[in-house]
């Protein structure tokens, strides 16, 4: 096999430079700044500041409320990831089988993808409105006194439903293309070996989808952790109150609303470490078990 390579050292560096600069300016520089300011308590206007060492971190660790937010974030991420992946997979498998009008079905299922998170949150607000939201009425006929913004579990439920709804189309697109890339011969062979449709799915189709599913798992965890911010902010109307919030939303509330730069920097650093650990974990432990063809 012919080995491709550059003849000079400078060409690859020059080609990489724009990307490296973007990363340096928009990631490393702010990240370094966040690490530095997490060791200080500073006046927002920049007049006074006190070096406090790791106090911002110890304050967070001893704050029971921060623990509660972290626990909620974990549950929220798990629920959003699980439901948006499983529902999308179900829809993709079903859509894959449709023959008549397949294109229109698929387009309709992908449509929601174009909606921005705050808009999704706003639609959620209308659906879950305390006084005349259709979802609120539905829950109430089921005997649940559903009250968005007033009751912790109600708000949490609305947050999960809106976030899942918004994410399904992305997953759907990937799963569908994953399904369609499975060779017909493999499926036909499976059809002879196994008569049960669900057996065929779990033994043949699902393992072949695993690379797609693994990629989507990462995307969805990141989505639930970070990109649901707009949905949450809209659903709680920028007033967290006794409503559940995620770690990222708390960084915003403390830093941008409350002007506590040191405290919110420490929270950002914790999130950075979390993402780092998550990435290492995913690639080291999970990817090994996945078979790429």
């Amino acid at each position, binding site marked *: 096999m012919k080995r491709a390579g550059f003849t000079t050292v400078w060409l690859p560096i020059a080609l990489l430079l724009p990307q490296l600069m973007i990363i340096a300016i928009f990631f490393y520089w702010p990240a370094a700044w966040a690490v530095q300011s997490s060791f200080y308590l500073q006046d927002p206007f920049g007049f006074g500041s006190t070096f406090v060492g790791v106090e911002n971190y110890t304050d967070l660790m001893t*704050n029971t409320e921060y623990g509660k937010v972290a626990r909620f974030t974990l549950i929220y991420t798990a629920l959003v990831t699980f439901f948006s992946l499983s529902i999308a997979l179900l829809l993709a498998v079903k859509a894959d089988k449709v023959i008549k009008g397949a294109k229109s079905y698929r387009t309709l299922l992908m449509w929601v993808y174009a909606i921005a998170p705050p808009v999704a949150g706003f639609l959620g607000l209308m659906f879950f409105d305390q006084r005349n939201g259709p979802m609120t009425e539905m829950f109430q006929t089921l005997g649940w006194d559903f009250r968005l*913004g007033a009751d912790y579990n109600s708000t949490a439920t609305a947050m999960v439903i809106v976030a899942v709804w918004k994410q399904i189309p992305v997953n759907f697109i990937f799963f569908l293309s994953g399904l369609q890339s499975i060779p017909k011969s493999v499926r036909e062979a499976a059809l002879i070996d196994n008569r049960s449709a669900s057996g065929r799915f779990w033994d043949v189709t699902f393992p072949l989808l695993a690379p797609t599913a693994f990629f989507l798992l990462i995307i969805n965890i990141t989505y639930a952790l970070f990109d649901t911010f707009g949905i949450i902010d809209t659903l709680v109307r920028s*007033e967290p109150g*006794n409503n559940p919030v995620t770690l990222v939303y708390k960084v915003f509330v403390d830093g941008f609303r409350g*002007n506590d730069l040191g405290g919110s920097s420490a929270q950002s650093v914790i999130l950075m470490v979390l993402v780092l650990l998550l990435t290492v974990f995913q690639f080291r432990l999970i990817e090994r078990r996945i078979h790429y063809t």
Partner: protein
Amino acid sequence: MTFWKIAALNVAVIISASAAFAETEITLWHAMGGKLGETVNKIAEDFNASQDDYKITPVFKGSYEETLTAGIAAFRAGEQPNIMQVFDAGAATVIGAKGATIPVQDLLTDNGVNFDINDYISGVRYFYADSDGKMIGMPFNSSSPIMYYNVDALEKAGVTPPKTWEEFQSVTAPALKEAGYIGMSQSHLPWIFTENFMSRHNLPFATNDNGYDGAEGTQILVNNDAIKAHFTALTEWKDSGFFEWYGTGWDDNQKPFEDGDVAIWLGSSGSFGGLMSKDLGFEFSATYLPYWEAVTTEPKQTFIGGASLFAMSGKSAEENEATAKFFEFLTSADVQYFWHKETGYVPITEAAYELAKEDGHYDRFPAAEVGIQQLSLPGGDNTKGYRMGFYVQIRDVMNREYGRILTGETSVEDAFNNIEKEANDLLARFAKTQG
């Protein structure tokens, strides 16, 4: 139009445009959206039209929090506006940053504008002042929490608006319930049932003279029997259908009143204009916030909410002069009366209040006067306001714990212990940012 006419017009435009270059231009960053923003723009246009030397440009920057954050970021980049609107809870942040602003009192006197703090109505006077009583921020959109009531509902129930919470509990609310109404809702628990609760009952809210003497060592005094009894009563009222809480959102609590389900709503005196413009289907009026007779027999004034205007430092003398002239214009009786009439915010000077009275504004709309009357009630040691750092977060903590009390997640005792502890931690952290 002939060619020559157009040419002449062009020349005229060019001449007037170059004349505009001689003007000193200043900017105002504010958080007044919608109808309020239009009124701010109108005031700015009137100021620009009233003279040729200065030109102000108002810029809407989003919510109060967003405006403050934008202003801070701009200040750190050396791009601050001349005037920035800062809300009540952000006052400690901006006043604590000595050197970020020019005290409005100094700005005015240095630029030959007469200033006497006694021209301002008493509830407005000292909220944005330092511990010596020097005014730092110019009170702008000032409001106070007042009690709105559905006149038809109260008539139907055969009761008058309650003066005390005891009366509400034993007379008003049961009668309203009988008549098919939920007694009461309110829109801002930290503001109405905490900050102004303390002022109304003349209870200290924080050490160091409610925090005015400095951030160092300031501790919150929120964990007292009077307020705990009040929140215990709220939970009982909620259980008996006398009171309802619809979450932390302001509108969620106002809406049931507008729909006629709730008979009494505690909101802002600044909500008056909005309520007037809606077709409510019932007659409404307003009066003072009730008080607990068991706590005090001499209820005091409340203090202002809303926001004030700060003159940012680091600007040229000419621009500061323009800022001073704008403040002079803004505080003139005519402009204040216009602002009051359009928005429902209280006029900040005695002169503007007199003008509104003379003009018969309160004969036409008696409820429009309640806010200013309540702000002008007798004061006490603890009625000028509070000055606490990281107060936005402290309010978030209060909202969280109050929500938990009202959804039965926690007890009143535990909630107030939590608020006290977390607020004091935040205050101690804030003191260190000032080092």
